[in-house]
């Protein structure tokens, strides 16, 4: 994005963005650089938008990245999809509230079946519940004793947790809140 190659190099990408936006007026889109585009979509329209993308030859879902923004009170979900046909990477950004009971999304596993795995991952680490994914409660990476905590959220105090769980006190400086190793 810093390279600012918005010139003739990314005409192809701009055409794709225009084509998608024409069919989805609720979304915003832009070209980041060559072979990288991104869209911002409201959370309730995500299924429509991903269906549209799938129809437009965006075949491979690479990952669902949740990013926690506690200052905004929101969790950002980034659906990263690669198009083998267009040779373009697309990020679909959407934001949902970060309170546990409100952090719910409709599942997209019927559009991209692999999303089931990524959704389980996001649920385990961020507590985002994907409605319609029956494997949500299935044990995933974390152990059952830790089911009520979501370690990748920003308000998860890792040091306190480690001290409590593993009962070690050395190597931790109590006065330093910002430690660098």
């Amino acid at each position: 994005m810093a390279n600012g190659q918005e010139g003739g190099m990314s005409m192809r990408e701009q055409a794709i963005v225009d084509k998608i936006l024409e069919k989805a007026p609720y979304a915003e889109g832009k070209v980041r650089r060559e072979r990288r585009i991104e869209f911002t979509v409201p959370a309730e329209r995500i299924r429509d938008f991903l269906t549209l993308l799938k129809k437009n030859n965006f075949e491979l879902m690479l990952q669902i990245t949740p990013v926690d923004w506690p200052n905004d009170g929101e969790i950002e979900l980034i659906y990263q999809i690669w198009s083998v046909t267009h040779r373009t990477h697309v990020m679909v950004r959407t934001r949902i509230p970060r309170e546990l009971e409100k952090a719910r999304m409709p599942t997209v596993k019927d559009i991209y079946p692999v999303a089931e795995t990524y959704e389980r991952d996001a649920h385990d680490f961020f507590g985002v519940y994907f409605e319609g994914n029956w494997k949500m409660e299935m044990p995933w990476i974390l152990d059952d004793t830790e089911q009520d905590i979501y370690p990748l959220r920003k308000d998860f105090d890792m040091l306190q947790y480690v001290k409590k769980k593993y009962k070690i006190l050395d190597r931790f400086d109590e006065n330093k809140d910002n430690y660098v190793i």
Partner: protein
Amino acid sequence: MVDWRLFEPLFEFARKRSLWIVSFCTGCGGIEMPPLMTSRYDLERFGMMANPAPRMADLFLITGYVTPKTLKRIIITYELQPDPKYVMAHGSCPLNGGVYWDSYNAIKHLDKYIPVDVVIAGCMPRPEAVMDGINKIMEMIENGTADSWKRYKENYEWYKKNQDELFGEGWREREARRWIPWLMDKKEE
């Protein structure tokens, strides 16, 4: 009856020269096991070989960091082994956490949960370091100081308390029953 203590030196020699390893890659150190077993370092010279069955194994190599989920399996596998058995921790992670000293999902001191005979420092330890550790454990078997399996029996209460503190009481049953709801026949529902 024959007094088997007479043969104890022979037994110690055999134990020393025939360490069978449990094939359980618990962490990233597992990637140095193939080089150790193949032509460049060739551990079979010392009579060591990887064995898929814990019942036959003597040496448990904890190859790298240990997560709580793995530790449950490590404890169960360790208890399956017949005595005398030896544990060698591989790398700095089982010793004190290593790079993962502040990780929420890595064990910091392995020797709180199972006894350890030899610890090899380094991340990741070179094959030469592992061979040095093996030499060390052979020496210890010879002078009878490799007694972690005795310690585990004597201090079982303490080890069990630490294990239960980490996993919660009754973790073995919980672990065994964990997958039952997901293995039911879905068609009949």
